[in-house]
């Protein structure tokens, strides 16, 4: 499940490192992205996501290590890389004082397109973003969600095999975020590989594989179910009708046995992740009853990538303190 077939990898990264003075923003990162994958790159702000993307897009020269994108070495042939990929940066995507059509005309021209193909691709992008009727509208007047769709369409004008999206849904409302991800799945079905960074952990669930960056290091890389199985094992029980203190008291023996991994409050529920005997529904219920919690309701919940993230980031922080 881990690691795409190297022959089929569109991105190959080997010990990629970027140092700014004495600060190491990206530290010996290695991974591969397979063709047609949605590859999610997760991490807190400052974890090194954008720096990695900038190196892969040929915008920054690596300090060490190497990366091949669409068959081109990013350090030696940045311009070939740029021609082969699409890129939607975090801070900016479109010129707001230009109309929809002027933006598309500009980006297609910047990729050296001309003639009928250019016109055809602009028409495609307008349709893709649902903006056929608003081609003469100033981009400034469009809502954020539609602007992001247009930006994505303009990054795909030259039909790249791979597109890098750096925080594409930052500052976009939840409904538009869902629409945007629908669009991403659609372009992946068309054969394009998507490399996307995000700090919305719910969005990472849509990715085929997820890499997690902590302090410049890639600390985990797997499918979302794989990450959960590895880093947050066991079952999650959602308890209603008891306080966190009561639940912790009831589970004291199991905790001492190392079988209770997390106790968290979610609204009126207390979520407990357990391994060992208590993973069994009846055994868990019995443990609560034995502690006098007889009026509780119990149902199974799911571990989320947020649990994975907290688990891994917590570990990283502890290691830092020890050092």
């Amino acid at each position, binding site marked *: 499940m881990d690691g795409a077939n190297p022959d089929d990898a569109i991105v190959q990264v080997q010990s990629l490192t970027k140092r700014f003075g004495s600060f190491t923003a990206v530290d010996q990162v290695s991974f591969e992205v397979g063709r047609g994958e949605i590859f999610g790159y997760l991490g807190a702000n400052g974890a090194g996501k954008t720096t990695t993307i900038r190196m892969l897009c040929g915008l920054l020269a690596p300090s060490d290590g190497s990366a091949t994108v669409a068959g081109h070495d990013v350090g030696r042939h940045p*311009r070939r890389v740029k021609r082969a990929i699409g*890129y939607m940066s975090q*801070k900016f995507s479109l010129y707001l004082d230009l109309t929809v059509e002027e933006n598309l005309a500009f980006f297609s*021209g910047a*990729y*050296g397109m001309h003639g009928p193909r250019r016109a055809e691709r602009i028409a495609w992008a307008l349709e893709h973003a649902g903006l056929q009727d608003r081609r003469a509208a100033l981009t400034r007047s469009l809502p954020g969600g539609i602007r992001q769709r247009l930006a994505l369409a303009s990054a795909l004008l030259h039909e790249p095999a791979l597109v890098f999206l750096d925080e594409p849904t930052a500052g976009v409302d939840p409904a538009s975020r869902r629409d945007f991800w629908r669009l991403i799945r659609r372009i992946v079905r068309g054969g394009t590989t998507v490399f996307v960074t995000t700090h919305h952990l719910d969005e990472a669930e849509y990715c085929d594989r997820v890499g997690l960056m902590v302090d410049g290091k890639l600390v985990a890389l797997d499918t979302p179910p794989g990450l959960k199985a590895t880093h947050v094992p066991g079952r999650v029980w959602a308890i209603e009708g008891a306080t966190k203190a009561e639940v912790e008291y009831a589970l004291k023996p199991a905790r001492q046995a190392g079988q209770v991994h997390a106790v968290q409050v979610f609204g009126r529920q207390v979520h407990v992740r357990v391994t060992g005997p208590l993973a069994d529904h009846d055994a868990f219920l019995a443990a609560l009853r034995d502690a006098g919690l007889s009026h509780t309701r119990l149902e199974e919940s799911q571990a989320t990538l947020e649990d994975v993230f907290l688990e891994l980031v917590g570990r990283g922080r502890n290691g830092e303190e020890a050092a």
Partner: protein
Amino acid sequence: MSGGSRVNRIRAIAQKEVFHILRDPQILVFALGMPVALILLFGYAVSFDVEHIPLAVVDQDHSSESRALVAAFTAQDLFELVAERETAEAVEPLLRRNVARAALIIPQGYSRDVHRGETATAQLLLDGADNMSASIALGYANSIALAQSLGRARVQLGGFEMPVEARVRTLFNPRLESSVVLVPGLMVIVLVLVAVMLTALTVAREYERGSMEQLFATPVGRLEIILGKLAPYFALGLVQVLLVLVTGVVLFDVPVNGSLALLFLIASVFLLAMLMQGLVISVVTRNQMIASQVAAISTLLPAMLLSGFVFPVDNMPPVLQGIAHVLPAKYFVDGLRGVLLRGNGLDVVWLDLLAMGAFFAVMLVVATKRFQRRVA
């Protein structure tokens, strides 16, 4: 990469820049309105020609000789009679209140002295608070007095030839009108403002918006970005040259004695140098606010003070002269006046072209170096 797509990429950037300009009407108002406003202001209001100096007269002699002297002062447009008083004390308030800038006082006995062949004295009071007008008025007064003296001497001696006579003929601007000199000088101010300011702003804006990174992520090369972004401002600059020139010729009779092609060549080289300076400023500052301030200080001051537009460079302290000889503004004003007023050809102005070209080359190197070093 084929040359065709290179052209397409440059064209795409230039076209985008034109849209930016058209979307922001302030740019066009600034670029096209300001030259006309400046030329009207400098051409009409700011004049270094001193004429119609208001003159108060105290004629205590009341003779035909004294009236002849007053007439000599007011015959040309140099002095204009604004008041007549009986006593010297009475004219002082006129000078104080700026009603008169000069007062001619002819004492009783002036005609008697003239007829006796003795030195007849008349007194001229000047307002030194405006030293420029005063010194010019003094010059006028001296030459009028000299002419009067010679006239009388000739009468008394029964005609004679002048021992020495300097025949001054002013070439190229015979009436020494300042507007004729100023209008071409204005071109330097108009061009530096627009060329440096607007390019500094437009490139800094791309950095501020984060769009420079997006541009760098496309296959567009750095030189292509530079060419595409600067081309519209180059065209705008040439339109300004034409605008200032036409206004100058139509309203102020500025002569065009040299070749128009050469004039536009000089303007083009100067424009390129200024566009490059704007680019350097924006690539280094990457901030619109700072860029506009640096642009204003680094261009307007040299253009006004060190170009020879108002103050002759040769009279400056050596340090300032040194600076003036490095910056293109002086060479532009020199070359332009040479072509417009003196009808100079390439054989004279090539040095100006060379100096401006050298500045352009240095700026181009600095700009592309900085542009490359600091990616994203």
